[in-house]
């Protein structure tokens, strides 16, 4: 039997995609949340000195995976959320990497300490970067018969974008006014049986 242990901080951030995948699949796992003070100890265990990382134990063998999206893709394939067929999986991948680019832009904003620079980045994010990326997602989602990115059903990128929108907090409402299909996706994921149950019980964190 395979067991999973996720190591990440007590936040959504880059770890939540993985938690959402476990939730959607119903697969049990240990959701270990690292205290900030304990980080150096766990940092040393992780492949690249970063979190999240996932410990996968199969009998006597343990493997550690890092890079949130590599973990996401691996679990998605295992649980059937990767898309159907090579070409669709590649397209799912493509959108996933694009969402990563957007998340990285958002992360720059979150990590900026200088207040003036932070404001500048925020303006750029809100006025240029977010709309630029959302346009593509809106176009794809608007074509969908299921409301998810792909007609074959829920894939990991639906959860990935859902999480990113969650990180925006109330700002996302402004975005939703211009991007209806994106809003529809957000609502659809929120209402998805197993995800809804997870959302109701997960720890409340700002980020």
């Amino acid at each position, binding site marked *: 039997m395979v067991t999973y242990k996720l190591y990440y901080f007590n936040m959504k951030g880059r770890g939540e995609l993985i938690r959402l995948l476990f939730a959607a699949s119903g697969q049990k796992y240990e959701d270990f949340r690292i205290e900030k003070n304990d980080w150096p100890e766990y940092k040393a265990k992780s492949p690249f000195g970063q979190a999240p990382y996932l410990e996968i134990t199969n009998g006597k063998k343990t493997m550690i*995976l890092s890079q949130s999206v590599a973990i996401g*893709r691996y679990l998605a394939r295992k649980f059937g959320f990767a898309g159907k067929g090579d070409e669709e999986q590649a397209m799912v991948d*493509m959108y996933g*990497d*694009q969402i990563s680019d957007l998340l990285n832009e958002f992360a720059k904003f979150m990590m900026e300490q200088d207040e003036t620079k932070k404001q500048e980045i925020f303006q750029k994010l809100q006025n240029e970067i977010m709309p630029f990326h959302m346009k593509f997602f809106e176009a794809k989602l608007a074509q969908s018969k299921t409301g998810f990115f792909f007609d074959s059903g829920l894939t990991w990128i639906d959860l990935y974008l859902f999480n990113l929108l969650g990180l925006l907090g109330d700002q996302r409402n402004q975005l939703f006014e211009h991007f209806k299909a994106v809003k529809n996706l957000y609502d659809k994921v929120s209402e998805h049986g197993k995800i809804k149950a997870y959302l109701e019980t997960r720890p409340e964190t700002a980020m």
Partner: protein
Amino acid sequence: MLKFTAIAFILIVGYSCSEADYKLTYFDIRGRGEFIRFIFAAANHKFEDNRINPADWSNLKASTPFQQLPTLEIHEDSETVILAQSKAIARFLADRFGFNGENEIERALIDMYGCQLGDLFDSTVGKNLTNQQFDTILNQNFKFFEDRLNKNGSGFLVGGKISWADIFLSQMTEFLDKYKNMYLDKYPQVKALDEYVRDLPGVKEWIQNRPTTPF
């Protein structure tokens, strides 16, 4: 007699089914596209190396998935799919050419190293960092890869054969320019892997014949 005819029919039909044609579109630079060119080279698979002028880019932009390059056009069985995002392209080709591990776990580990290399590219190539900052990030990352190569023991990052992560790592060492030897001399396993990749017949030929570009 009938059985022979049936088999002959299948062979003929099978033989005439066309393989995919690939067209990689990128600027006339190495940048984010070169490691994909290396993948084709390592696989000895032909592709159209479509290099576009910056002047023509604005016209082309709207036809790309995310208004960015590189893109890969896959023409197969009279259908065309256009892929963007260099790593998504790499993964797809790696699956086709056998550069994506032997099983799901290997595939995931290769993905992990590929993502880390993508992060390394994003944080260093063309970025305005101080020498100190470059040095720190580069050494940190090379150490990860060196440790992994030592642990894995096969000369490759994952499993027993070459993967797109190995190819990506090797190609990226080009961005070190004149500092390449200075760094790689400290990381012998990485250096050996780089030499291995560049010695592959297809890659060797590609490097000899490719356009010379500053970046």
